[in-house]
């Protein structure tokens, strides 16, 4: 028996399975690559957020203010009074577990505190302890004291939620963890514990109108550079205008679309479309950001950032607003903007100048989604398209969480894709539409320091892409979300290289036959179009 | 509202299951019996049997009074076939011509008058009753004394027994029978819609020491007794007269015997 090893003689070091305890008894363990850096005081100060300080989320001591607990609980009471959703969702969960295995972070990490129900319980336990009678009984009633460790636990897991609302679809009472996460983050922000990745863009956006802090001249020259590329590929010189008063339409898209790849190709798609139509529209450098990091921070911040869109539309005297492809931008525009910054009486109910279609569904907010706008154009035969230019692509479509579960735009983009591509393949049923899996990096989680978490969070989505890649040879994942365009490329690159990511408008831009265009040899990325490969090589 | 549970159970697929099981059941048992021979006779102490001496039925009244005696005692509804669906008729004792009663015994050269002769029919209380085998709830069962009895409380109205009975001795209550009972006998229950019923050999009368109602009303044209008792009246008649059972080739071994006579028609 000499060589028979004793149990765990090999690699006993990694067997750290603790005895099974109740979740409240398992303190949070901060894992590297799973949490963001803390907010810098100067950013918080700029946007007027309280309790900014130099701190490090990896440290034991977070340097919380002395009365942090009172601030937290007062804030909670305040939110309970302001949000019926919050109070209700604290009270009525029956812990049936229907949501448990619906969260991409739970599926990817297997960490049970990432089950939406338990992520909510982290806060519910505080609610019970301080706001219900039964909670005075303590642990047996599912209540616990608010301690610094508990606060860190909330912080850790509330920045492991992308507010994708997939849990809400399956909940019999519609309890929405996104809503609870938003409340949790409001409380976190009261203590100055925002993440660096969110607070930086917040401050930038507040000051310059976009997340990266691009100043107006940078935007303009950036566009010029993009227009040169466009001219090179199509032979058409597009001349967009900025901050032009008297335009009919204001166009707003996430700023990532004009400075990040592959967003820029989507942006080229918009530019081509508008040029093709001769649309009387303008961009704005003041309201140059559709995306709204306030949505991940606090309702007031969301309002402050969002207000620029209506303000700018009023200043420029446009009739209505068109919005580009973006996920949470559309959640805000669709469900919050009118309430927060409306009524938009200075605008007119949107009517397509080319088809005469009245966008009845946008008659109050006066803001139309580019996919609605484009689908309408195609349906009315207003666009000359050459589908074969996308023949080298086997396309699938990723429904973005926010436009899926906070709006319901499913058919419009699919209609466009099917009109501009010959090869379209859906991912498996339960991973699309209202069941879509999140990219794993939404709601301010696309920070570099949590690359590992994001890769795991995006694993369910990546798996579905892998499935269609293996089954149908899919090599292009289209989407209508700027965060998707930013984070899906690395995700897919890690799990299954050789699937590209693009916006739907990029596919449109490829297929659109521009008046006066030269023989198109390249797509918008400068890659040879199908049938043009050899020519490209000769050059 | 009256809940027709029988109908429900039927719909609920009981039928399918029951049919499958019962069909298999018949098949197996028949095979077994075929190999052991059909001549096996009940060896129980008591086997009730009836002998009907058809020669003594002369006028229509002779027939009518036995039917009437039976049907009035047992609250059998009078559903006139002409006025409704013929299948709605409930019959415990009824009459058919010779050819229908003994289709396998018909001889082309029988006297015409004999062919027209009516034969009273009722449940044969077979020694090997197929209806018992198919009943999915064991509502129909064979008593130790040979009577094929039906427990109405258990009947779910699946009607397998009706399909299984080669003698058409069973009737199904398609409608609530109560309005069609001319005068109710309060000593005997009625039935509900959705159950099957048939002659019981008046088991309730036997227990009270009475003869079956039809026998009593027949003025000696019918006899009733223990077939396994060599001294019984029925055995005496069967010993001295030529008798027939219906469809003997099926091997169900009916307990009702017909003394058919026939010589009076010779001529």
């Amino acid at each position, binding site marked *: 028996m000499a060589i028979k090893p004793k149990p765990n003689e090999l690699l006993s070091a990694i067997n750290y399975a603790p005895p099974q305890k109740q979740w409240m008894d398992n303190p949070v363990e901060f894992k590297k690559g799973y949490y963001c850096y803390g907010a810098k005081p100067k950013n918080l100060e700029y946007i007027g957020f309280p309790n900014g300080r130099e701190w490090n989320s990896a440290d034991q001591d977070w340097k919380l203010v002395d009365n942090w607990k009172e601030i937290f609980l007062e804030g909670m009471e305040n939110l309970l009074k302001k949000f019926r959703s919050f109070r209700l969702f604290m009270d009525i969960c029956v812990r049936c577990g229907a949501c448990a295995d619906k969260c991409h972070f739970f599926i990817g990490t297997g960490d049970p505190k990432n089950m939406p129900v338990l992520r909510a319980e982290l806060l519910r336990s505080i609610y019970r302890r301080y706001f219900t009678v039964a909670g005075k009984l303590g642990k047996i009633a599912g209540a616990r004291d608010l301690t610094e460790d508990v606060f860190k636990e909330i912080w850790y897991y509330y920045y492991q939620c992308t507010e994708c609302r997939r849990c809400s679809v399956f909940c019999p009472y519609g309890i929405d963890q996104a809503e609870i996460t938003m409340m949790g983050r409001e409380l976190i922000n009261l203590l100055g514990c925002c993440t660096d990745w969110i607070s930086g863009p917040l401050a930038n956006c507040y000051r310059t109108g976009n997340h990266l802090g691009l100043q107006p001249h940078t935007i303009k020259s950036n566009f010029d550079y993009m227009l040169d590329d466009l001219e090179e590929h199509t032979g058409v010189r597009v001349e967009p205008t900025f901050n032009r008063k008297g335009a009919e339409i204001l166009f707003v898209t996430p700023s990532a679309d004009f400075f990040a790849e592959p967003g820029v190709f989507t942006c080229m798609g918009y530019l081509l479309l508008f040029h093709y139509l001769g649309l009387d529209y303008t961009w704005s450098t003041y309201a140059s950001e559709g995306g709204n990091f306030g949505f991940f921070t606090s309702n007031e911040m969301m309002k402050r950032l969002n207000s620029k869109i209506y303000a700018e539309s009023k200043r420029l005297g446009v009739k209505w607003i068109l919005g580009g492809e973006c996920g949470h931008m559309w959640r805000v525009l669709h469900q919050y903007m009118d309430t927060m910054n409306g009524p938009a009486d200075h605008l007119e109910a949107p009517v397509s100048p080319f088809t005469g279609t009245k966008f009845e569904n946008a008659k109050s907010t006066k803001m139309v989604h580019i996919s609605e706008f484009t689908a309408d154009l195609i349906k009315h035969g207003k666009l000359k398209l050459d589908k074969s230019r996308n023949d080298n692509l086997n396309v699938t479509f990723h429904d973005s969480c926010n436009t899926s579960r906070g709006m319901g735009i499913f058919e419009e983009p699919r209609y466009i894709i099917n009109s501009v591509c010959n090869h379209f393949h859906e991912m498996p049923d339960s991973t699309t539409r209202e069941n879509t899996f999140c990219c794993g990096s939404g709601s301010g989680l696309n920070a570099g320091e949590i690359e590992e978490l994001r890769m795991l969070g995006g694993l369910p989505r990546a798996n579905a892409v892998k499935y269609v890649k293996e089954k149908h040879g899919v090599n292009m994942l289209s989407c209508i979300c700027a965060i998707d365009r930013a984070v899906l490329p690395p995700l897919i690159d890690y799990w299954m290289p050789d699937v590209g990511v693009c916006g739907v408008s990029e596919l449109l831009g490829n297929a659109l036959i521009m008046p006066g265009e030269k023989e198109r040899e390249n797509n918008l990325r400068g890659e040879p179009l199908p049938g043009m490969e050899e020519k490209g090589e000769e050059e | 509202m009256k809940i027709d549970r029988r109908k429900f159970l039927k719909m609920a697929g009981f039928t399918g299951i029951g049919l499958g099981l019962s069909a298999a059941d018949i098949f197996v048992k028949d095979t077994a019996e075929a190999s052991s021979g059909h001549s096996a006779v009940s060896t129980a102490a008591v086997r009730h049997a009836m002998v009907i001496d058809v020669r003594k039925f002369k006028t229509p009244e002779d027939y009518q009074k036995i039917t009437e005696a039976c049907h009035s005692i047992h609250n059998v509804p009078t559903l006139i076939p002409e006025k409704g669906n013929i299948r709605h008729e409930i019959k415990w004792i009824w009459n058919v011509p010779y050819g229908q009663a003994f289709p396998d015994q018909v001889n082309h050269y029988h006297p015409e008058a004999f062919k027209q002769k009516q034969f009273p029919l009722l449940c044969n209380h077979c020694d090997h009753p197929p209806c018992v085998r198919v009943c999915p709830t064991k509502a129909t*069962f064979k008593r130790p004394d040979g009577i094929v009895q039906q427990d109405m*409380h258990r009947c779910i109205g699946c009607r397998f027994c009706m399909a299984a009975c080669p003698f058409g001795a069973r009737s199904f209550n398609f409608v609530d029978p109560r309005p069609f009972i001319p005068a*109710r006998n309060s000593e*005997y229950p*009625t039935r509900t819609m959705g159950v099957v019923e048939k002659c019981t050999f008046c088991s309730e009368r036997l*227990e009270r020491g009475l003869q079956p109602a039809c026998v009593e009303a027949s003025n000696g044209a019918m006899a009733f007794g223990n077939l396994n008792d060599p001294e019984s009246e029925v055995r005496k008649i069967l010993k001295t007269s030529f008798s027939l059972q219906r469809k003997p080739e099926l091997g169900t071994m009916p307990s009702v015997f017909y003394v058919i006579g026939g010589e009076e028609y010779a001529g």
Partner: protein
Amino acid sequence: MYNGGKIIIGLIIFIALVTFPFYTNMGKTSEQPAALTSSPDDPHIGGLKIGQMRSEHMKILDQWRDEVVRGGERFITFDGDQYEKSLQIGCLGCHAKQEFCDKCHSYAGVKPYCWDCHFAEGEGQL
């Protein structure tokens, strides 16, 4: 309160539903069937005491049903006399259905299906 109208209507409907027994019986005095006249400890046919019959009679009837129909044991002896184990002939021979059975049954909302086949003399004649 926000959306107060809808919430209050909802609450009123809810309260109306759960307090249904109170207002339907408003002002009524409930009248229960007459109490037993004989001593509850006296024996009764079937082996039970009279006091037990109210809650157990259905079991006895059920048992009798099997014994009679399936076993052919039609008679029972009680106190030296022979009785028929029969709802129709036995029970209703002494007890009047409408007074004795129906009152309690309808009071307690019990609808036995016995009466679908068994009946009292003269009852339901058309």
